[in-house]
């Protein structure tokens, strides 16, 4: 049993900025001199954009665009989703540029191009800035500037507010910083309508409240990595028991929140019933995570892994149902 908080790196000071240079990165190298003379492979630049995370960003952005009342020229719609994807890729590159030393100390991230020395750190930063600025400019010129402004906010939110400011300082980093991942459907929706209404804000809120249980489920089974590099993830700082309680609380809130678009008449029955079933199942998956304790070092953390896997499926199906509702039933009111 290990409900107590894991010890942080002795150099970590709660509430103080993390000096990445102080992190003990163990035996893994932060540079690989043998390969630094060679130009980076294009696949390394691609992996800087975190393509797997981008797939969820593209999907929710596309769903926001398709579920919005009104229509958009398919070319412009494609451009809007492309800008959301490139913006997310730019923010991810800036994240990896800033966290290269931290990534080197974690098993999950140690094989990324920067910790492996396959890419120059300055190149990664410039690549991130180029993608970020380019995506905002194209969004503004091709779609409109409100969508571009929100895209810019989402990039700054992830790269600065989350990565640089909150992540090394507070165990609530995921709660606030997770908002960065909630922007894509909002941007997609606004690309069509041109203005902010309650419905896209609700979609934002759903992803905002979905992120903590999704990420903390992951953090529960990779927490030793976070402790090693001094990142104050909730399981590291507050302990497993507190994290499990928080997962349950957010899962409870997610149920009525996911139904709100239907309650206010913004969607039809396809979405409403899907949200009820999916969020109910989310809660069912969160219960065993909330009321169990790790049984030892050989605990395979199956409920936590199951919740993490289901949470990804949840978001895909929920947003898929939102689009199906709009396309089949014509959706609800233009909220």
């Amino acid at each position, binding site marked *: 049993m290990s409900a107590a908080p894991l010890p942080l790196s002795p150099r970590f000071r709660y509430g103080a900025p993390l000096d990445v240079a102080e992190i003990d990165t163990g035996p893994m190298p932060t540079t690989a001199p043998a390969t630094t003379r*060679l130009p980076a492979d294009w696949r390394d630049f691609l992996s800087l954009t975190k393509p797997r995370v981008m797939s969820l960003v593209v999907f929710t952005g596309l769903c926001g665009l398709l579920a919005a009342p009104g229509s958009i020229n398919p070319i412009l719609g494609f451009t809007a989703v492309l800008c959301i994807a490139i913006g997310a890729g730019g923010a991810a590159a800036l994240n990896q540029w800033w966290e290269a030393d931290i990534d080197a100390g974690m098993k999950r991230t140690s094989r990324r191009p920067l910790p492996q020395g396959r890419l120059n750190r300055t190149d990664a930063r410039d690549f991130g800035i180029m993608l970020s600025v380019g995506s905002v400019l194209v969004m503004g010129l091709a779609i409109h500037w409100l969508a571009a402004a929100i895209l810019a906010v989402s990039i700054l939110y992830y790269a600065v507010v989350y990565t640089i400011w909150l992540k090394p300082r507070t165990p609530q980093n995921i709660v606030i910083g997770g908002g960065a991942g909630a922007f894509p459907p909002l941007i997609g929706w606004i690309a069509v309508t041109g203005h902010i209404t309650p419905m896209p804000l609700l979609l934002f809120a759903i992803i905002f409240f979905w992120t903590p249980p999704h990420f903390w489920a992951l953090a529960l089974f990779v927490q030793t990595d976070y402790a090693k590099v001094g990142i104050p993830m909730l399981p590291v700082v507050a302990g497993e028991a507190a994290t499990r309680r928080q997962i349950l609380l957010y899962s409870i809130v997610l149920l009525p929140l996911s139904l709100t678009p239907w309650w206010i008449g913004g969607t039809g029955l396809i979405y409403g019933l899907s949200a009820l079933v999916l969020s109910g199942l989310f809660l069912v998956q969160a219960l065993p995570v909330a009321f169990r304790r790790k049984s030892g070092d050989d605990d395979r953390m199956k409920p936590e892994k199951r919740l993490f896997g289901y949470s990804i499926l949840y978001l895909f199906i929920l947003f898929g149902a939102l689009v199906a509702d709009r396309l089949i039933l014509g959706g609800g009111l233009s909220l």
Partner: protein
Amino acid sequence: MTPDEEREYKARRRSRNIALGLTLAGFVLLFYLITIARLGG
């Protein structure tokens, strides 16, 4: 630089140039289509 390293260097440079060229060509096409879409709208 050994012959092997030089070969690797050239291969990477070539693949990066191809990737960059394709990206630029994609953007040229995209901006053309955006222009047509905006003019049509």
